[in-house]
């Protein structure tokens, strides 16, 4: 087993265990912390895949921004001593069965699919991505900024206290 494979296995176990904790743990703040761990593992996978820019973007966006937002949400809607209610809905068994069946389908596709693996070396990621975003993908890029603007306005409108 090579060092790369070992790193993959370690990261894989880290990602899956922390993901499982996210969906099962009772305390939501702990769940958010496991979510950070999971995101960090995924960033590690990106480094293994030689996508350094995405690895940093993952830390910057997911860990640095989204999870902070989620923590904010948890702190604003819950007391530290709260959370006596069961974390899972009454239909959790059915949900588990559905997710399990879906997993089998995904695994079937992942194992049997034939992909043409290219052996060329990958491009230098940041430069290529930057060029692609302002040439070939410039329209989606501009659309993305419109989506972000809409989300910004929407979030402010939703969260505003209308009594004031």
């Amino acid at each position, binding site marked *: 087993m090579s060092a790369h494979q070992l790193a993959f296995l370690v990261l894989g176990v880290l990602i899956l265990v922390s993901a499982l904790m996210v969906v099962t743990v009772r305390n939501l703040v702990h769940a958010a912390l496991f979510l950070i761990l999971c995101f960090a593992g995924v960033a590690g996978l990106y480094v293994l895949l030689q996508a350094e820019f995405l690895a*940093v973007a993952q830390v910057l966006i997911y*860990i640095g921004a989204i999870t902070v937002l989620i*923590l904010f949400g948890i702190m604003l809607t819950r007391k530290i001593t709260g959370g006596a209610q069961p974390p899972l809905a009454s239909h959790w068994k059915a949900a588990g069965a559905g997710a399990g069946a879906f997993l089998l389908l995904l695994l079937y596709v992942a194992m049997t699919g034939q992909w043409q693996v290219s052996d060329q070396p990958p491009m230098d990621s940041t430069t290529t991505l930057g060029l692609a975003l302002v040439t070939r993908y410039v329209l989606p890029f501009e659309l993305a900024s419109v989506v972000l603007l809409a989300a910004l306005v929407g979030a402010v409108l939703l969260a505003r206290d209308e009594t004031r």
Partner: protein
Amino acid sequence: MEYVVMAAKAVVVFALVSGSMPFIVWAERKVMADAQARIGPNRVGPFGILQSFADALKLIFKEDVVPTGIDKRIFYLAPILSIIPALITFAVVPYGGPDLKLFGYPVGYVADLKDVGILYVFAVTTLGVYGIVLAGWASNNKYSLMGALRSSAQMISYEILLGLSIMGVVIGSGSLSLVEIVQAQATPYFGVIPGIWLFAQPLGFLIFLIASLAEANRVPFDLPEAESELVAGFHTEYSSFKFAMFFMAEYINLLTLSGVITTLFLGGWLGPGVDRFPILGVLYFSVKTVALVYFFIWLRATLPRLRYDQLMRFAWKVMLPAALINIFITAYWVAR
């Protein structure tokens, strides 16, 4: 072998950065005392230079008070989470040029991430907010929580400014690598003025300076721990060694941010004679960084604290437009 060298460099830089922290605290107390016409610490060692070590000993031997009703695991995790990001930023800050070699290995920096460089600094800086938020929340104390929420709102707002204000430097240098950003500052303007980005990007420098003050929770942006309003803010409930860790994180952050500003705007290791004697670069880098630390301490002795609404309004209504204008001007100047 490459990794062994990198690990050795990391250990040395780690030791130097955390070892310089007591002296920064001492320097801050001395400079503040001077500014207020006092003498400052002068009993422990010559000029009181060992005062920080005495304080550290005192902190370690104090009783470790653990309040009731807290979330214990997060309470213990928070100080660790706040000190790690402060320490690992220095991994990409070049304190000497690529010519500085020891046994054929470049020792001027721990690692040069060509593709991400400066983005790594921001990614790590954003992690600093977790220590504060979790400390405030786990303490189960309303002053702590309010300090934590204030500080996270402040840090998220000013992170955006940090990112936007260096865009001018990145566009001008054409690289994200910190080593290449410093090298881009080697050519003098008009053959005489040092080619550092401070002169070409004064607006960017000013915004970055203010935003890093806010990011490090320094005066005039030290609202998270505003004593007169919030007791001690997010670390109200912390004592003994856990408090010492927050304290250390704060000062190491100050040093790190000074190092980053030196690299981005003040030409890093560059200075007269560096091409012939690369070891001089380390000296230049240290002098510039220490000068910045002194500047931050001086600010603390001079400025009053901003009010919270002023702070947020200032970030979003003044600094953000200014940073955007700076990007547009730089882009126009480069594209011309």
